């Protein structure tokens, strides 16, 4: 692009009919212009890659970085949803949030729901991907099929599931009653409510993760499997000794994204009952719901300062857990790949 621009600038065609004022000066100017063109193309090579990726970073600065910093500012003030900025209070909001029993309950709930959803989800996704990687008939149909739950809006999923998990008249408790089991307090008890919400999350994300794993599996050279088969390794051995170690980067990616997503879980627990407050004793109130309730919900009374402080604490928690995650997955994956050799 720049080269053609330089050529245009370098060779201005004299307008027809006008007398040529002096050949020498024109040539001199042309040379100078070519030199300028070189400089341009030099900049082009140096700068344009940054220009090309800049839209992302500009957008990120506006929609990601700015809110992050601004939340930090809000967390230092007494700030009301309607009244706006109040007095500077320093770290008092953080102190207040850390002193709230509900905050710690919310943190517990977030971790519990995250573990109940992420672990089975990744294991299931691996198994589904391994099956889809075999020579199935109507491959595309099966592969698209596992993605269908992902297309359904989370709010719709939550409405259907919260109905199924009704304590007195829900479908699941009805079935349990038919086969002679006691009904489960899907809303009233802590662990059952987490299980129900984790089920919604798994329903939505397992297929998505399975497809990511499948893509990575297909990139594994088939020679490995042939060699393993000749050496007498069965399917299971091949899966653990070839497939899993080769998936290392993908595993790290999926685990980290599901950690971030899991700790920020909001839609499903918020829609799990009609008030969206996480239950009478905060059984399934997650940390993001706590933030929402403080800022916008009934319980918090529009205290943006408290909400912002809680949001920053969540950010710190995610960073810490992400780092632990990274170290752990690195260690596990590299151990496995060593034993595979």
């Amino acid at each position, binding site marked *: 692009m720049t080269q053609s621009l330089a050529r245009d600038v370098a060779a201005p065609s004299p307008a027809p009919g006008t007398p040529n004022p002096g050949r020498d000066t024109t040539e001199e100017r042309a040379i100078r212009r070519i030199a300028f063109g070189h400089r341009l193309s030099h900049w082009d090579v140096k700068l344009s890659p940054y220009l090309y990726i800049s839209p992302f970073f500009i957008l990120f600065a506006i929609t990601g970085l700015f809110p992050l910093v601004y939340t930090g500012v809000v967390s230092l003030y007494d700030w009301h*949803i309607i009244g706006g900025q109040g007095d500077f209070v320093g770290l008092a909001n953080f102190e207040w949030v850390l002193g709230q029993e509900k905050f710690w309950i919310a943190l517990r709930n977030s971790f519990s729901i995250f573990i109940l959803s992420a672990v089975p989800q990744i294991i299931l996704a691996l198994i589904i991907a391994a099956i889809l990687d075999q020579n199935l008939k109507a491959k595309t149909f099966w592969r698209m099929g596992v993605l269908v739950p992902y297309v359904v809006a989370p709010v719709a999923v939550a409405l259907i599931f919260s*109905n199924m998990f009704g304590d*007195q*008249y829900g479908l699941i408790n009805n079935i349990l009653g038919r086969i002679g089991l006691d009904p489960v307090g899907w809303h*009233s008890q802590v662990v059952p409510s987490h299980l129900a919400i984790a089920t919604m999350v798994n329903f939505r994300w397992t297929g998505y993760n399975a497809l990511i794993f499948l893509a990575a599996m297909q990139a594994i050279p088939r020679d490995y499997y042939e060699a393993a088969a000749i050496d007498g390794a069965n399917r299971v051995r091949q899966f653990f000794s070839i497939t899993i170690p080769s998936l290392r980067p993908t595993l790290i990616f999926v685990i980290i994204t599901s950690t971030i997503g899991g700790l920020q879980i909001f839609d499903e627990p918020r829609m799990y009952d*009609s008030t969206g407050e996480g239950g009478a004793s905060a059984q399934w109130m997650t940390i993001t719901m706590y933030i929402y309730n403080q800022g916008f919900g*009934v319980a918090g*009374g529009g205290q943006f300062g408290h909400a912002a402080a809680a949001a920053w604490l969540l950010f710190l928690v995610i960073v810490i857990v992400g780092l632990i995650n990274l170290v752990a997955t690195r260690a596990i994956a590299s151990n496995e790949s060593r034993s595979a050799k």
Partner: protein
Amino acid sequence: MKISRRTTAVAIAGATAFALVATGCSSSPGAADPNEKITLTVATFNDFGYSDELLAEYTKLHPNVTVKQTKAKTSDDARANYFTKLGAGSGLADVEAVEIDWFAELLQYSDKLTDLSSDEVDGRWLDWKSNAATDADGRLIAYGTDIGPQAICYRSDLFEAAGLPTDRTEVAALLEGDWDHYFDVGQDFVAKSDAAWYDSVGSIMQGKLNQEVETLESTDGEIIAGDNPVVAAAYNDILAQSPELSAHLGQWSEDWYAAFSNGAYATMLCPSWMLGIIEGEAADVEGWDIADVYPNGGGNWGGSYLTVPAQGAHAEAAKEFAAWLTAPEQQLQAFVKTGNFPSQVALQDAPELLEVTRPFFNDAPVGELMAGRAAAVPADAPFKGVKYFPVMKALQDSLTRVDVDKTQNADDSWAQFLKDIDALK
């Protein structure tokens, strides 16, 4: 209408819809030209009874105005949306509905709302209704829509099976008395029936507290719920008998909605706006009826207002529209549709209202009946201050933990309640 829970305006989706609709009318400030083409938006929750036909009538009267309505699922959602956008300074509908329980919270920021007082609407509402909508400077910032005079709805089929009278005047005579009497009859009933007596302890608490003036907050704005003997007595009375009488349903929960049609309980406290909800949820059930009686006299539960946020581009046009919507003629139509009882003085004994009946409730003369219940509402309205809504929420949670979840006993749950309201101070 059927409460829009399953289909529309689900919390998050609702907020987006608000934003989308609101953008439709944001341009061209200064509605100087009275014939300029404009779109007015009105945001309500649950069901205000403003049908599309009713809104179309306004367009007939004002050809330059198109009206769009957005409905939030619950009052909580509407509150979150309202407060967020009022703080942000943009995005609200031209006319926004407000529920009485969080009205005081909003009243603190009445300078962000349009003053709606005018000669035309002076004296249109019951005094306590319009007094609550007047701010400290004497500006009227909201037009009353409905009030919630309470009666008792009952299942005549369950009454019959238990050997109780089924005719609504006989039922009214049977239940006439105070709350203890209502509970006593309930004990008789549950001894002879598999069904429970009432739906939810939360609504009984609402019913009791709405008969008092000072409950959760003192009139000077202190949270007194923890020390107020009225609240503690109500809490203990209700929970003492709830194991037998309650259907153990959390109000507004999935189970609660399902129970309208499956006969889990025999009676429920019935503010006028509940009629539409029952009819919507139990459309194919026969046996629902309504009795002209209420424990301990009368009571009002809920009721709403329309406000005009000052941030809107067409505040004057919106004010005119809100005045039209809350005029007796339109509010009467809303009553016929949903049972939301009007707060307008002219309608309290208007013949058109008195003759309204509802076939679903065994042809009950709901107009006459509800007018009687409205007259029985105590003149001293309960005081609902800035923290009323969150404290009420904490109190309801404490009842839910004992009666619905059964995860705590009454004493532990009360201790938890005291901790929860400490966090609100």
